């Protein structure tokens, strides 16, 4: 038992180096995804349903197919069209596009969750559409989106393990290296799992802190 714990402790620094790559891939993908989602959302909210069909299709394609398949298309498929990426870039592209579809849905549903009475109230005061969104709708919608967006980061941290398959030396891949050189699969993968778990628990705490920081005072009383 002691020997197992000692082994896990010994490989943790090596895994931690992989965690840096995991964070890098996840955070960069999240931010690119958020940028794409932020651009798609107003188009989806404001365009007529027929015109927003293209955006809806984009979202459906990325949500309706496995991330691994998307990753393979980008890394193994696109070179046949002359488009070639290194593993890290391909991984970030796949995760960003996939995440943007989920984030677009998060942002859209957060905006849709703001009651119509808030629009009416702001419009009745003479505000323009831009002002209504800037001062009234978006500040409330973004607050509502925070838990789901943090959850998306957690999902990305876990899903980024898929890029190990194309050779990116992130956390899971480093676990694989250890297994290959020591044949101690159980201990190595448990260590990898523990690192993911600690990171995800820490993220949930961050989410709670953010929710508390941006909470609307009096909201918990449920008086509307």
């Amino acid at each position, binding site marked *: 038992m002691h020997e197992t714990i000692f082994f896990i402790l010994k490989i943790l620094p090596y895994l931690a180096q992989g965690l840096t790559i995991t964070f890098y891939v996840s955070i960069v993908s999240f931010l690119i995804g958020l940028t794409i989602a932020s651009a798609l959302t107003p188009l989806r909210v404001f365009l007529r349903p027929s015109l927003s069909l293209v955006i809806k299709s984009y979202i459906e394609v990325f949500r309706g197919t496995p991330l691994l398949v998307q990753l393979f298309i980008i890394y193994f498929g696109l070179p046949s069209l002359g488009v070639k990426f290194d593993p890290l870039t391909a991984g970030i592209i796949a995760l960003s596009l996939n995440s943007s579809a989920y984030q677009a849905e998060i942002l859209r549903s957060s905006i849709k969750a703001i009651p119509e*009475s808030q629009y*009416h*109230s702001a419009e009745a005061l003479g505000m323009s559409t831009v002002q209504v969104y800037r001062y009234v709708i978006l500040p*409330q919608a973004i607050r509502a989106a925070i838990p789901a967006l943090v959850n998306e980061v957690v999902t990305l941290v876990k899903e980024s393990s898929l890029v190990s398959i194309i050779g990116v030396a992130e956390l899971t891949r480093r676990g694989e290296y250890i297994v290959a050189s020591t044949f101690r699969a159980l201990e190595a993968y448990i260590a990898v799992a523990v690192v993911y778990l600690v990171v995800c628990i820490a993220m949930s705490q961050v989410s709670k802190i953010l929710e508390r920081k941006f909470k609307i005072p*009096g909201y918990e009383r449920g008086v*509307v």
Partner: protein
Amino acid sequence: MDVLVIRELTAGYHSTPVLRGISLRIAKGEKVVLMGPSGSGKSTLLKCIVRLVEPWSGTIIVDGTNVLEDNVDIRKVRQKVGFVFQSYNLFPHMTVLRNITLPLEVVKKMNKKEAIDRALQALKVVDMVEFKDKYPLELSGGQQQRVAIARALAIDPVLLLLDEPTSALDPELREEVLETLRNVAKRGISMLIVTHELDFAEDVADRILFMDHGMIVEEGVPYELLYSPKKERTRSFLRTIFRRLYTKH
């Protein structure tokens, strides 16, 4: 001069008509109460005045501006009309003070100091100055409605539209809002109020209109309309209201 003139107004949702030819006038400083059963089109009428609901046909003139003309800037009209909603509709993520200063700053283009001064004046009218730094959801329904009244007053409107301002409130909270509205009425502002508060209507209204099925069925001075209505429809509606009042007490 009339602050509001409505002629032959029709409106509806999808293909269902709600307003079937409404005509009314409100003179400067006049207080008009609008009564009628739910679904009679009272709220729709109020919303049509500032085009929160798009009318089908007719004419609406607010302070000399034809609201339904194609080239009219409806935001300019809205800046002259205060609107108080049944469910207050304050912005929950802003303090009471910010709820009032925001439209003054971004719509009326006042500087911060002017906006704060004006907001504090308005809060004084509704006796809510001490709550200026609270958030709406930290207040009672009655207090929220008083802030909503202050927000509508702060834009210095020529006409105040109130859509059942007390119907979402408990009986004990209603009185504080009605008292606030009595004070507001004394300031000489023109008001169109949808309410079923008979005492309040009798005290404050210069005229009461009774609406049913999207039409104005009857109108008159409060005493006349409340105690000797001519139309059977008005009588039966008032009977229901009186019965509800007596069974409550």
